[in-house]
């Protein structure tokens, strides 16, 4: 295009720019591949005489500034040296307009490019550079301040995180006893101790799970794999037994549950029974076994010789005296006349039941006392 076309179409983008200058700019941009640093460095456009004259008339400026060196302000010069932003502005605007106007050439309009070109804002660019400048020239005090702020913020973050974690842990801790069950029993002092004890056992059992000592898998003390498996199974079943204990609830039923669980254990367990036992069980009926006195000891049996009567269960002295009282009422003596196996086990059972009865009585007494107390407090409601 020549200068006429330019003056018609593109002059209004920026009246400061002549056709020649724009062409020069485009040439430079092409040669240096849009590397603005180099372009602005080698930008040496000089306007022709007539251009200057025109400008002089237009703007009505006085001096020919190119000759005097005493000027201070750029604005008074007829030809303003271009800044990078000026160049970019002109180039992008003109390109955008040219690209837009190329209509039915068969060339697809690169809309994205045109949009990008249009979005160039000279003032924003100058602002951005000012910001960058300020950023790069911060005084060391500012930098130090910023760094200290960052460190503090990080500290706060960590502290907040820690607090959240602790809170979660606390909630977890508080959640362990089921809040759905009535909590009144835990409001009394005895209830509280009971709660504490339950929690402790829970905790202990938990710990036992995690702290199960693992047998060495390698080395001279390693146990063979099959034995490891057996150990694992044993540990699992013990844990289950304890679980069932807890599910039972109060300590009074613990013995019952103990027996129950033992039976279940026995059923679940696939103890490697010796062949002899298997043989005996298959051949003999239970009555025959009783006649022959064959007994399978599931509980732990102490080594050595001892008298059965020495191993009768005893309790704490306070409980024991009450148990004895009850026995007296029942008309049974403490000493067994004939401590056979069956007799002893039955006696054992009896003792346990009496003990739990005593315990229950104690508790009911306590609760009744507290009930009356509360009633009185509330004024005989």
């Amino acid at each position: 295009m020549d200068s006429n076309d330019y003056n018609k179409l593109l002059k209004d983008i920026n009246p400061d720019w002549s056709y020649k200058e724009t062409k020069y700019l485009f040439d430079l941009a092409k040669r240096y591949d849009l590397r603005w640093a180099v372009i602005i460095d080698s930008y040496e456009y000089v306007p022709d005489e007539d251009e200057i004259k025109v400008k002089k008339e237009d703007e009505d400026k006085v001096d020919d500034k190119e000759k005097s060196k005493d000027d201070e302000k750029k604005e008074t010069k007829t030809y303003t040296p271009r800044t990078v932003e000026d160049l970019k502005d002109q180039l992008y605007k003109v390109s955008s307009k040219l690209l837009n106007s190329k209509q039915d050439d068969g060339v697809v309009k690169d809309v994205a490019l045109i949009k990008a070109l249009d979005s160039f804002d000279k003032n924003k660019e100058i602002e951005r550079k000012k910001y960058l400048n300020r950023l790069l020239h911060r005084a060391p005090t500012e930098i130090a301040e910023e760094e200290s702020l960052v460190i503090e913020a990080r500290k706060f973050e960590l502290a907040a995180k820690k607090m959240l974690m602790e809170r979660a842990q606390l909630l977890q801790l508080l959640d362990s006893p089921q809040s759905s069950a009535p909590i009144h029993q835990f409001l009394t002092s005895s209830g509280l101790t009971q709660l504490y004890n339950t929690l402790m056992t829970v905790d202990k059992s938990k710990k036992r799970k995690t702290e199960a000592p693992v047998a060495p898998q390698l080395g001279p003390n390693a146990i063979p794999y099959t034995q490891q498996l057996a150990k694992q199974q044993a540990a699992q079943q013990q844990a289950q037994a304890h679980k069932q204990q807890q599910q039972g609830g109060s300590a009074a039923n613990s013995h019952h549950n103990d027996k129950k669980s033992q039976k279940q254990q026995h059923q679940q367990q696939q103890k490697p029974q010796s062949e002899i036992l298997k043989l005996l069980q298959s051949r003999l009926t239970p009555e025959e076994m009783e006649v022959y006195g064959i007994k399978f000891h599931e509980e732990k049996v102490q080594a050595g010789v001892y008298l059965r009567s020495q191993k009768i269960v005893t309790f704490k002295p306070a409980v024991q005296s009450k148990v004895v009282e009850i026995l007296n009422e029942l008309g049974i003596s403490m000493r067994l006349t004939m401590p056979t196996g069956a007799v002893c086990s039955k006696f054992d059972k009896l003792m346990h039941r009496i003990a739990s009865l005593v315990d229950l009585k104690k508790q009911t007494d306590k609760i009744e006392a507290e009930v009356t107390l509360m009633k009185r407090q509330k004024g005989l409601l």
Partner: protein
Amino acid sequence: MASSSSTAAPQVYGADEVNAVVLDPGSFSTSVGYAGYDCPSMVFPSHYGEVVDGKGEKKRLFNDSFLHTSRENMKIKPILKNNIIIDWDGAVDQYNYMFKQMGVNPEDQPLMLTESTMNSYKNKEKALEVFLEQENYCAFYAVKQPTCVAFAHGKATCLVVDIGHDLITVTPVVDGFCLRNQVIGTNYAGAFLDQQLKQFLEDKNIDIVPQYRVKSKNTMYWENKESKPQFETKHYDYKIDNSVDEFSKLRVFQEMKETVLSCSLDDQAEKVPDADKDKMDVDYDEQRYFELPNGLNVPFTDAEANKIANSLFRPSDVLGNGIVKGWEEPHIGNIIETIGTADDKSSKLYVPLRRTKRPEEEEKEKDKDSNVDAKASNGADGSGKVKSEPCGLTKLVQTVLERIDIDWKPQLANNIIVTGSTSLIPELNKRLYEELSILNPSMKIRIQSVGNTVERKYSTWIGGSILASLGTFHQLWVSQAEYKEIGADRLIVNRFR
């Protein structure tokens, strides 16, 4: 020799078997070699000796060995000044001599010439004429020296600080292109140090006697102004020209600079001798002795050595007390104006515009003390007068950094390359780094310089060698045919800006 910028043989880069010749003229020495090698084959001083025959014919002599011996009727003349060739006849002769020694065949091998960023249009024209027409090289290219340095260090964008003999220049290089109008430099360089050393010796009443005048010598230590060296003078029948003496002094100064000088981090005031301390208690470890060709050992204390080396950073210190001869006029760094061809045409149109740009540049070079305020992109400061404060090295670098566009500044600050033989002064890099870091607390300053002495001295040549051996460079050569077709003018404007 392991070098950080080692180049493989040209074949690796897919180039032809063409071995280009790389020629790097400098104010002190000129280096020549084949491209693809990692150090120049020949290094000659940038002077020649002109001898007038008995017949009255002038003959030129090159090469170290010739120049440092005395000869009847020989005058030594410089070829380059301020990195720009001033004596073309001598230059051409020298190059031919060197090429002959190397066995260069112009018709087969292209020539790559390195030039200063301030090289004049006339010089470029002359270069093209000489090499393409006169010497008949098949192809030619002129590359800017900072560009070469950048490539030698493997960086496309960097700030090249070249501390040479005549000049210190600081040039920003972006993407391989030198930003010519942002180049700043002073003449407080190697020659400045030479002059200071000279005055130092003169103050002590010491004469530098060139090697060839010494027949035999005895070691003698300088103690006071009355000390006289003990040596036998060689007598010559003929008169030896002054220029020959001066030239060989250059060699002495070079050695002195290499061995004695060292920068220090802070500017120590001259150590005031303690009133109580007896002079005999002076710690002799602090003094270093330098032996002159005539056997006289000159003592240099650390303070004195530091003072001279530090003058690179603060020339005002040295200039304030006594004038360094030849450097009376303080140089503020606008090297383009003083040395370069400011009014030169680099485009077809005549450029009166340059002069209007000058006041701006001068204003920017004013003494801006440390705490940097926010700056507008064109910081006009009010008065058009120039403060004549001589620019030290740090200030030069700082000025360039300040003027450069903000987009490039962090990248340039992070890639500062220090090169040039005078930069081998110990602690110079360290001091530069410390001072720049203080002035720019928020920018990451990184100074890079090759450790290897040879590479530091000849990085420009090495860069040219790398460039000429690149496969992708081969399309850039200007062939004779092209020269004849297009003509020098357009070539210079377009290709060798």
